[in-house]
């Protein structure tokens, strides 16, 4: 359970990144945090594992104030995968990279081996086990970074811009295992601009602008609101754009799902033929 209570955060250089954010994320929820560049998304998620402490207000993880425990301790529960994998890769092999955090948390060798194998399999990295992370492509490095966090099996998983640099197939894999993890009871939080990806996942969507939350609700409700979406410098999902234009013909506006769209169009076509 993540509880954010009226949090303000100002960086040492004077930039006010969060201005009164309140929010609750229950265990097992799947949340997408979206918003324009500089809206405060990354700043907000850095509060979840205690890397940043609120200037005002407080953040509670399972009832514990993040000011009172170390980042290492919180990280055991809250796994945060940074946007740029190059900010964390340093080991000689992918395998060692993944075991780094496990060693920090003091797992024993047997469990470390098991967890590393599990993570390598999960992210399709088995063939790179003994490769240097620096030799991999951008997308692969990103997966190594992801594996290195998933390996310790945190209860809450935060992914900052997970889809950047991934081709469609990897995105689809990513989507599948995010959903799989979520179904296994993990809280999953993604920070992203990728509206099409979010639409396919259908999580709870939190929109941010200028350090504040401007909307919080179901995907369908939030991402089909043209005003909210444009305030977050996003563009409506393509399917929604089509249906907005078809509104004159009596189609609903709030369509985000391809299958639903197909059904609606087929119904209309059949109806037309019958006439």
């Amino acid at each position: 359970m993540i509880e954010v209570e009226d949090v303000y955060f100002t960086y040492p250089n004077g930039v006010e990144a969060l201005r009164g954010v309140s929010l609750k994320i229950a265990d097992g929820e799947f949340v997408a945090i979206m918003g324009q560049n500089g809206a405060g998304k990354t700043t907000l998620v850095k509060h979840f594992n205690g890397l940043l402490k609120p200037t005002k207000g407080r953040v509670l993880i399972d009832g514990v104030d993040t000011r009172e425990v170390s980042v290492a301790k919180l990280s055991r529960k809250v796994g945060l995968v940074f946007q740029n994998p190059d900010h964390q890769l340093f080991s000689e092999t992918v395998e060692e990279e993944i075991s780094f955090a496990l060693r920090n948390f003091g797992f024993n060798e047997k469990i470390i081996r098991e967890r590393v194998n599990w993570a390598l399999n999960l992210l399709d990295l088995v063939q790179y086990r003994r490769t240097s992370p620096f030799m991999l492509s951008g997308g692969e490095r990103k997966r190594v970074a992801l594996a290195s966090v998933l390996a310790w099996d945190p209860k809450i998983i935060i992914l900052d811009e997970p889809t950047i640099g991934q081709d469609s197939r990897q995105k689809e894999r990513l989507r599948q295992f995010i959903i799989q993890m979520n179904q296994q009871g993990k809280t999953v939080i993604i920070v992203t601009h990728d509206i099409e990806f979010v639409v396919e996942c259908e999580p709870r969507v939190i929109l941010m602008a200028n350090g504040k939350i401007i909307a919080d609700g179901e995907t369908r409700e939030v991402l089909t609101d043209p005003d909210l979406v444009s305030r977050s410098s996003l563009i409506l999902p393509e399917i929604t754009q089509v249906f907005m234009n078809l509104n004159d013909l009596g189609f609903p506006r709030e369509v985000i799902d391809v299958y639903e769209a197909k059904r609606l169009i087929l119904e209309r076509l059949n109806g037309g033929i019958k006439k």
Partner: protein
Amino acid sequence: MSIFDGLKFRNVSSPIHKIDPRAKFIYVCVLFVIAVLFNQLIPLIILFLIQIPLVAIARVRREWLRLIKGSIFFATLIFIMNIISLYFYGNYPSFAYIIEHSLAMTFRFIVLIESFSLFFLTTSPDMLGLSLEQIGVPYEFCFAFTTAIRFVPVLAEEAQTIIDAQRARGLELEGGNFIRRVKNYIPILIPLIVNAIRRSLELAETMESRAWGASKKRTNIYVLKMGGRDYLFILLSLVMLLLSLYVWMHVKIPYLTQILQM
């Protein structure tokens, strides 16, 4: 704000900022020579004091003070080391002399810091590069120099992100013995260095794709020109140098301890 801000260009307008970097560089060199020339306390204190008005004119007092405060640690170190070595190996008539001499060495250090700080606080990296170029240093070197300075804040920011990313993976930087602490920095230094190298390669490629170095004869929008004020500044610096040389050769500088005992 860190102590390094005392060595970083502060963009304010002041008469000192307007002086040609070359003239200021000569001033720094002169000060360096004088500071090394004398090892008595009195001239070094004078040297320290005459720069304070310049700092005030340049409107960089705050940054300058911060740097001086930041250098207190090293200054104390120098002071203590001098006292220890002079106590055991020097032959001074009394402990007061030892203290005076150690203080002199400390002031020499502060004077050097002070003048470097004044120089860097009032000279923009671009101007510095330009002046290097116009005294005949090849453009490639000047460019490398200014780029290096420009990327310092970028690297500092990146280092912070890397620290955050590794802490999110359970790395604890605090605590542990010395070896453990050093080992803890490996996961931070490697990504930092790798990224710096990667970035420099990228920078080289993007610059070459924008035709960097295409023409051998390169001209500048800005051309530094020495004016009356600059020559005056150089002249004053040189007069200071000559005066000090004269004093150094012909005047026996008394110890402060002696004066106080009279």
